[in-house]
């Protein structure tokens, strides 16, 4: 029996959202994650004493430290997916699988972000300790024999890889910058009504084309914000979920993975077959996620899509089946992702592009609020929500939640 509908997200909670570095020194990663977990427990009507598991992605924090700090009585399950933000949505699937397997009963998922000392975006260049290369640097203990094949290319982070992928998508399918702009503009429109959003002022097409170039064809408005903060989610069994504070949000299906040739960090790799390179890599886990849930993209009411870069939203719309491959540009240009009027509203919370960048956890929170009917930008009658993970390295992932 699959884990379909066997577990439910019952609590979500968040800290304040800060611009990059602004949470320091009043907060630490440990204080941020503890505050978010307590908020999520309170939302669920649960206590620290109920927690017995941690299902993470990208080794986002050390469960031993957080359990000790919080005073969790007994830890029965700790696991993390490998990779980066790609498995953010799928980490809820990891929690559900632990519960379904009987290994844990109340599982925490969270991702604290504090970028005072390290920026996620400029991954190859550390700026806090001078001009040091953080890979290919023996002094920092990172000396792979393979880094030399990319490190002097000038490609330094996930945004540069997204630029290369977007450029090839434009060449292959005729996608334009206007298409990327629609993602930035529609996401900002959603954020404009969100009290917590870090960017609220409406964007026009002129604003987009006047924004400074970062790495062609991507401009500043194609890039995620840089944020400090934390969002946490609590997952329990479907049975237990019935007695808690809010209506359960069931985990219908979840999968992570991608083409085996996706390779490590994509700005150091990009060796995969064309159909996988010019994509988000998500169509493989998407297929398995829909199969587990027994539904298709036409059944999804709202999509919370990992938006590290606007073009990767467009490619995920293709890979999660909302439009045919290569047609993401015309699909968004036709207004399909707009709140209220579109066929599949996307990132109703303002996403990473305009609300806050918390490596996908805010997307999980928004999915839960949509399915409870309490979202700021509520999609009328939303019953099924998709949450996806990012696109910079294996695994990518997605989870379908339902009310």
């Amino acid at each position, binding site marked *: 029996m699959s884990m379909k509908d066997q577990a439910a997200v019952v609590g979500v909670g968040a800290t304040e959202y800060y611009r990059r570095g602004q949470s320091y020194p009043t907060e630490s990663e440990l204080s941020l994650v503890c505050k978010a977990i307590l908020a999520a427990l309170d939302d669920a009507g649960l206590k620290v004493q109920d927690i017995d598991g941690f299902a993470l992605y990208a080794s986002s924090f050390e469960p031993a430290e957080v359990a000790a700090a919080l005073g969790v009585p007994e830890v029965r399950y700790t696991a993390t997916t490998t990779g980066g933000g790609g498995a953010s949505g799928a980490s809820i699937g990891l929690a559900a699988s632990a519960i379904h397997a009987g290994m844990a009963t109340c599982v925490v998922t969270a991702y604290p972000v504090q970028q005072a000392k390290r920026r996620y*975006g*400029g991954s*190859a*260049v550390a*700026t806090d300790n*001078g*001009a040091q*290369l953080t*890979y*290919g*640097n*023996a002094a920092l203990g990172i*000396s*792979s*024999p*393979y*880094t*030399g*094949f*990319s*490190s*002097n*290319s*000038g*490609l*330094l*982070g996930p945004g*540069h890889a997204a*630029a*290369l*992928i977007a*450029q*090839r998508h434009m*060449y292959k399918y005729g996608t334009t910058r206007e298409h990327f702009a629609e993602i930035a503009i529609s996401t900002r429109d959603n954020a404009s009504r969100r009290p917590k959003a870090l960017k609220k002022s409406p964007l026009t097409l002129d604003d987009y084309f006047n924004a*400074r*170039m*970062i*790495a*062609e*064809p*991507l401009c500043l408005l194609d890039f995620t914000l840089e944020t400090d903060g934390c969002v946490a989610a609590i997952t329990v069994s479907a049975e237990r979920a019935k007695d808690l504070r809010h209506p359960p949000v069931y985990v219908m299906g979840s999968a992570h993975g991608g083409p085996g*040739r996706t390779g490590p960090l994509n*700005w*150091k790799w*990009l*060796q*995969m*077959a*064309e159909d996988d*390179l010019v994509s988000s890599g998500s169509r493989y886990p998407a297929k398995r996620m829909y199969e587990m849930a027994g539904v298709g993209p036409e059944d999804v009411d709202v999509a919370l899509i990992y938006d590290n870069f606007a073009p990767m939203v467009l490619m995920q719309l293709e890979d999660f089946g909302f439009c045919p491959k290569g047609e993401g540009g015309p699909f968004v240009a036709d207004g399909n992702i707009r709140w209220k009027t579109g066929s599949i509203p996307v990132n109703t919370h303002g996403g990473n592009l305009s609300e806050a960048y918390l490596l996908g956890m805010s997307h999980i929170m928004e999915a839960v609020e949509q399915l409870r009917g309490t979202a700021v930008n509520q999609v009328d009658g939303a019953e099924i929500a998709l949450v996806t993970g990012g696109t910079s390295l294996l695994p990518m992932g997605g989870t379908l939640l339902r009310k």
Partner: protein
Amino acid sequence: MTATSSFGEIRKGVFPSMQKHTFADPTTQPFWDAARVGRLIVPCCTRCGTFRLPPYPICYACQSFDLEWVELTGLGTVYSYTVVHHPLHPDLVDAVPYLSAIVELDGTQGEGARMLANVIDCEPGEISIGSRVRIIFEHVNDDMSTPRFRLVRGDEK
């Protein structure tokens, strides 16, 4: 225009060789030995003929560990590129804008043996997907020679 920085000399359009050591192992050392003398060699599976980069010890197409190093012409085609305008480090201010590209090498199957490299001596408007390029190696020291590409211009054809 040149300037000095913690990365060494900085020239517009040229990404500095930040990594100065190859950390080579037995399966990557031959590439750097050839690079030092300006030659491009790439491992090719002797069982199935698939080229691969970076030089992993095993063939991803047939799982053979047997390989031969094949010398290529150094010519290739731009598969995709980006013009980097924003310096990710303050010392890169005088290097931007620079071009970084994915290059598919002549004589290989393309995917699986692509090179990621800085394209130099090229204005941003001069490059496009499909542009023909030729490799050059910048001698950094006796260990590292950085591969870069230049456009193959009309008068060189």
